């Protein structure tokens, strides 16, 4: 009844969806799996109307439709249960359920709260949630809020004619095991009312709940299986795709690290809610990669090492000194450089020139008595522009106008020219094209050769395997397994995925 035919979506420089065929029948539960960046979110956004497709067609009962916004999609019975919850904390449950649709309870400009409460109770009964609809939403538990979201979407049942399609985006990522089971039971019961599209990182859950599974990779549906016939291993293989090209990751340039030179040591470090009992060592010349799904705690660990988040327990030592005051200034002074995922926000200052960006973290080296040594700054910038082949008209060019890859090189130059030897890379190749990615891999090897240690959160698992000396797999904030990645004896994708999910 709901179908996508050859749906395309293009963004500047990226073909996000390449001819997607997708179909869902009445009362079906469809699983949608894929790695980060495979195109799952883009596809979902097209389905619930946040994006508009620019090729192919979207059909409901065989008729082509086009949603300009989520509200139009809702009017056709398509609702989204958000992963980052969309409820407003300081409103009551019933106000949230009917947010934007209060008109039905209004007479002469006055809201009939009793009527709204009754209607809300009816919706909450559908998801078997026995709470007072007048409760302030922020007082609910996470799982309860998730159910309220579901109840909110289920109001569509009364509001639209025709069938409902409900999208569940990673609904289990923050739930406890019993809560997940409860949710699954509920979804199965609700089949009589709606069809579901279930997106998750956790393949076992998808296999358990879904009738059919679509596997996405690089903007395409690469596999489509019926759950009862599916084999988890095969799906994993399709998710991660092709074999790894050894050249691509410059593996021949990988040298053993120096085990006697410890740059960073984490000893039983915990930050409850984010990560627990993390012990790691980073050595000179090493690439240490933290692998895990989104929200597994790897970003928080990186932020703690950079001093942005103070851990509650355990000790972090940098070059043998215990870190006592956690702030970026201290870490930078000890030689830590951070290449953030949000390149344009935390990486470069757009509006400032290449040379101003490169010296920003080390102005002390380029000034005396508070006065800048601008010629020296420019000389350094010119040196790094030619060293890393930064494509910029000159050292005066505004960093905001450079391409993503060149911006990344400027950020790298900033840390390397200042002599930082502990480099934290958070998704360093995100959004870069292949050539720019290869440049980044080259730089990783070059930094290792200079004796720098690198802690990496990779964009893909292939990248993690290809670049690392050591991989720590993190799940739910704990290290599940540590792999040694000697050349020729690297763990496989499946080894990693096994511990990730």
């Amino acid at each position, binding site marked *: 009844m709901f179908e996508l035919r050859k749906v395309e979506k293009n963004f500047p420089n990226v073909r996000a969806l390449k001819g997607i065929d997708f179909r869902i029948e009445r009362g079906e539960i469809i699983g949608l799996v894929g790695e980060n960046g495979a195109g799952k979110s883009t596809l979902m956004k097209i389905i619930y109307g946040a994006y508009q497709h620019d090729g192919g067609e979207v059909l409901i009962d065989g008729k082509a439709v086009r949603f300009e916004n989520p509200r139009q999609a809702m009017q056709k019975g398509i609702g989204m249960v958000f992963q980052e919850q969309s409820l407003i904390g300081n409103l009551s449950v019933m106000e949230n359920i009917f947010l934007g649709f209060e008109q039905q309870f209004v007479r002469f400009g006055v809201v009939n709260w009793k009527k709204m409460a009754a209607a809300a109770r009816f919706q909450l009964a559908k998801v078997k949630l026995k709470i007072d609809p007048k409760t302030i939403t922020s007082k609910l538990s996470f799982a309860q809020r998730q159910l309220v979201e579901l109840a909110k979407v289920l109001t569509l049942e009364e509001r639209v004619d025709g069938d409902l399609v409900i999208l569940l985006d990673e609904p289990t990522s923050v739930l406890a095991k019993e809560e997940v089971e409860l949710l699954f039971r509920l979804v199965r019961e609700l089949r009589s009312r709606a069809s579901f599209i279930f997106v998750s990182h956790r393949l076992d859950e998808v296999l358990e709940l879904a009738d059919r599974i679509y596997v996405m990779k690089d903007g395409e549906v690469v596999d489509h299986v019926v759950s009862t016939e599916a084999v988890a291993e095969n799906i994993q293989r399709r998710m991660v795709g092709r074999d790894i090209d050894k050249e691509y990751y410059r593996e021949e340039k990988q040298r053993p690290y120096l085990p006697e030179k410890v740059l960073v040591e984490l000893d039983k470090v915990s930050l409850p809610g984010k990560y627990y009992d993390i012990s790691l060592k980073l050595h000179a010349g090493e690439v240490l990669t933290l692998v895990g799904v989104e929200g597994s705690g790897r970003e928080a660990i990186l932020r703690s090492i950079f001093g942005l988040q103070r851990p509650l327990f355990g000790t972090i030592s940098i070059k043998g000194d215990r870190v006592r005051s956690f702030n970026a200034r201290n870490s930078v*002074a000890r030689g830590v450089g951070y290449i953030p995922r949000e390149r344009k926000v935390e990486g470069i200052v757009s509006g400032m020139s290449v040379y101003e960006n490169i010296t920003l973290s080390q102005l002390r080296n380029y*000034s005396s008595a508070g006065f800048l040594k601008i010629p020296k700054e420019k000389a350094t910038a010119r040196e790094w522009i030619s060293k890393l082949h930064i494509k910029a008209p000159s050292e005066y060019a505004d960093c905001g106008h450079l391409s993503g890859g060149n911006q990344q090189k400027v950020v790298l130059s900033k840390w390397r020219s200042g002599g930082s030897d502990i480099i934290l890379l958070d998704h360093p190749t995100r959004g870069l094209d292949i050539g720019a990615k290869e440049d980044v891999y080259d730089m990783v090897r070059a930094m290792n050769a200079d004796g720098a240690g690198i802690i990496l959160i990779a964009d893909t698992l292939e990248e993690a395997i290809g670049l690392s000396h050591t991989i720590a797999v993190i799940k739910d904030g704990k290290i599940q397994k540590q792999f040694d990645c000697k050349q020729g004896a690297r763990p496989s994708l499946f080894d990693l995925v096994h511990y990730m999910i």
Partner: protein
Amino acid sequence: MNLDKLKKHFPWITLVVLAIFVGLLDPNFLRPENLLQLAGDISTLFIMALGITFVIYIGGIDLSAQSVANMTTVLATLLLPLMGGFAALACIAIGAVFGLVSGFVSTRLKVPSFIATLAVGGVALSVGQYASGQKALYMDAAMREQAFGWMTGNIAGLPREMLIAAVLLVIGLVIERRMVVGRVLKAIGAGELAASASGLNVDRYKMIAFSMSGACAAIAGLLFAVKLSGGSPVIANGFLLPAIVAVLVGGTPLTGGVGGVLNTAIGALIVAVVRTSMLYLDVPATAQQIFFGLVLIVAIALTIDRSKVRTVK
């Protein structure tokens, strides 16, 4: 040439066009001595605006400048018999401390700068009222001449006030373009998160910007006191709006990161020419703020970088 590049040249083009327009109304306007007089008259306002520029440059706002200047006129008059010429230094230091307090409240207590400076301005105003006993105070003519005489009159045909403003402008330019402080303030204005991720002590530099603004407001107050030979907590009233207008029409947007002190110099001259033109057009002085209020709204709407402001409250 595209619009973005042209935008940078808007302020001085506006200035020239306005000057020619007023020149057409009355050719006398363009006589050198008249123009010098004009520049001299706008100097105090410019000095106040110069300080405010640093705060706007980092994306904040300083609403306390006028009150600090008011307070300074009173303090300068009271301190002159006690300290002689050193009263000037004391006043500037006090102004800087008021700015520092604004900076502390806005960075450490996380109070938005407009409300932090409004509150600190309230304190300054009240200090001025209390210290003056709500009366206008007068300086002893001989003492004034001895301590501050060098600030008034002309030298080689140039108004001394204008020279003081020019010296401060040069200092401001050096700070902005040649010193670490200026570079960091630019980084904060253009991308605060990247600045702190580079390990910069963002809070400290913000406080420096606020105290520079406080010091400049105090210098402006000092010049008022000397020029009028006395102090009163209302002397500088009506200066805040045109000072902010000078910064914004000069080309430093409320969102910060671009523009600078030279822009503010041009902005202050634009304000001066506009004021003069209102004289020629018979707009009464009391009605001028109507015009500056409107110009302020237009200037903000045209220059603000909306990509930096997600929601407006």
